[in-house]
């Protein structure tokens, strides 16, 4: 449980942020200059709020009324910065063990061998930071923060200084450690793609204020927050597991509560969990099962909700088995199909619309 309620003023910039969140991954989302980094720095104890309270897992780290301000080295929070900030005078192994050696022995729950394996660092241990690629350096920085045995991991735009390929590489490792080590993460980003791929709960910041907090889809989908969330595509995130690969056509079949989904090849093993985000505009609706059609995913669904809107576009809520989906269609189509709640329909999803950005490792 993360409970933050802080105020701080720097020049003209007035930060006033309050939120509570309990989730494996809490996303702090906002444009640059919205105060995201200030919030994580305050949580980490690097800068002191003028007033307020920071409580992590029922332990008060900062409380201006009670005069509590725990020193950063005693907060037990791992911090991964935008730049990897590895110690240049130490090799990879010594970097990894820097915090581990200082953590009390009975707090040693996260094992160096495990982290080395998880982050693929085995072959790099004797290298110096200057000889590593950007992605490797950031992986070492993540491992170093983890091995200090934190109760919470703070990540401030950890992908920002990497190129696209490295971003994907590191993102995948972050997903793995989230699932494998079950360590809560506060993830700061201005990227919708990263937030929806990783986070369960999102806190939306704008100009130093927290505007909303809640699960990703409900916050990011809210119309009135559109100016702050930007062009966010409404959609639904579903949890799936890999069933099989079709080597010949380069496709992967994913199973979820309610059916199966065919997507372009996902690099993971059968049985692995994968998170897929399906944008509402990528779903079409048919009343009968279409034949002779290029669309690979035809799912039986039940209409649960229809948004009441005056414009050209409406959102139709559906369930496939127990899994909720949203389809965005024109009001004309809605009228043409005469859709009603409770009606049985077919949801059509092009496999090619589920690209790399929408398929992540859950």
């Amino acid at each position, binding site marked *: 449980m993360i409970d933050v309620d802080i105020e701080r003023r720097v020049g003209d910039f007035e930060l006033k942020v309050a939120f509570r969140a309990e989730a494996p991954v809490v996303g702090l989302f906002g444009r640059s200059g919205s105060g995201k980094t200030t919030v994580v720095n305050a949580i*980490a*104890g*690097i800068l002191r709020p003028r007033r307020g309270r920071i409580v992590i897992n029922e332990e008060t780290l900062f409380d201006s009324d009670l005069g509590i301000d725990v*020193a*950063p*080295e*005693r*907060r*037990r*929070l*791992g*911090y991964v*910065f935008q*730049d990897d*900030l590895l*110690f*240049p*005078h*130490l*090799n990879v192994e010594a970097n990894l063990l*820097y*915090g581990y050696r*200082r*953590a009390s022995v009975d707090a040693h729950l996260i094992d160096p061998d495990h982290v080395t394996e998880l982050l693929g660092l085995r072959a790099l241990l004797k290298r*110096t930071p200057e000889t590593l690629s950007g992605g490797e350096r950031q992986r070492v920085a993540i491992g*170093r*923060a983890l091995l*200090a045995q934190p109760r919470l991991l703070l990540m401030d735009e950890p992908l920002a200084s990497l190129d696209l390929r490295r971003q994907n590489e590191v993102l995948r490792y972050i997903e793995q450690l989230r699932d494998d080590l079950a360590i809560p993460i506060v993830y700061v980003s201005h990227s919708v793609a990263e937030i929806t791929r990783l986070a369960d709960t999102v806190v939306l910041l704008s100009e130093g204020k927290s505007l909303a907090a809640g699960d990703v889809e409900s916050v990011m989908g809210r119309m009135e927050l559109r100016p702050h969330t930007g062009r966010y595509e409404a959609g639904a995130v579903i949890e799936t597991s890999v069933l099989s690969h079709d080597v010949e056509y380069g496709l992967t079949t994913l199973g979820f509560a309610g059916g199966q989904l065919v997507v372009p090849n996902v690099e993971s093993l059968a049985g692995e969990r994968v998170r897929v985000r399906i944008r509402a505009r990528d779903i079409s609706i048919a009343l009968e099962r279409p034949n002779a059609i290029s669309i690979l995913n035809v799912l039986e669904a039940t209409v649960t909700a229809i948004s009441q809107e005056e414009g050209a576009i409406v959102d139709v809520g559906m369930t496939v088995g127990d899994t909720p989906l949203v389809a965005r269609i024109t009001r004309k189509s809605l009228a043409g199909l005469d859709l009603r709640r409770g009606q049985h329909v077919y949801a059509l999803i092009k496999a090619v619309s589920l690209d790399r950005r929408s398929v992540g490792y859950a």
Partner: protein
Amino acid sequence: MLSSDELGIILLSLKVALCSVAFSLPLAIVIAYVLARFDFAGKTMLDALVHLPLVLPPVVVGYALLLIFGKRGALGAWLDQWFGIVFAFRWTGAALAAAIMGFPLMVRAIRLSMAAVDRRLETVARTLGAARVRVFASVTLPLALPGIVTGALLSFARSLGEFGATITFVSNIPGETETLPLAIYSLTQTPGGDAQALRLSVIAVALSIAALIASEWLTRRASTHKRS
């Protein structure tokens, strides 16, 4: 090769220079760190005080030392009475004079290298559980090592060459305070001493070059050490 007089002079010079570096280095590191990392009232004063020996005539520094640390000086009498430490007309006084004259050079070099250490690395170290003192010892100090080596060498070389403050403070006593420069000076004042003055000068040059090579080697070793 070397006469026993010459050997004595060289050994005394080395002893004076090494002691001056050894005792001033810890203080120089602390002051350099304070100047590089903190802002406080009186910082300019401290900075000026450290630099004073660089701009004052050495004779003035020597005379000031004589007034303060001499037998009847305020601090000198007190140190003698309570700790039995005497600087006046002893080799320890020569080391003190050398340390003070070399101090600004030492602090400047160390301060520059400490200011160049990325402060964010110190912040990271703290989030990894290291308290301030540990951060200093495990991050700041090793990363500033090249500057510390340079500072120590500059001060060492300055100590070997110290003349004005030394001769004013502790005079020229053969076997006690007669270091290389003092010996060379008195030989040039002695009829027929030219040849020996030249020999000692060559030795002084050799010592300086040796110190330079040693520091290069130390710096390189320090930077390869971090690789292993």
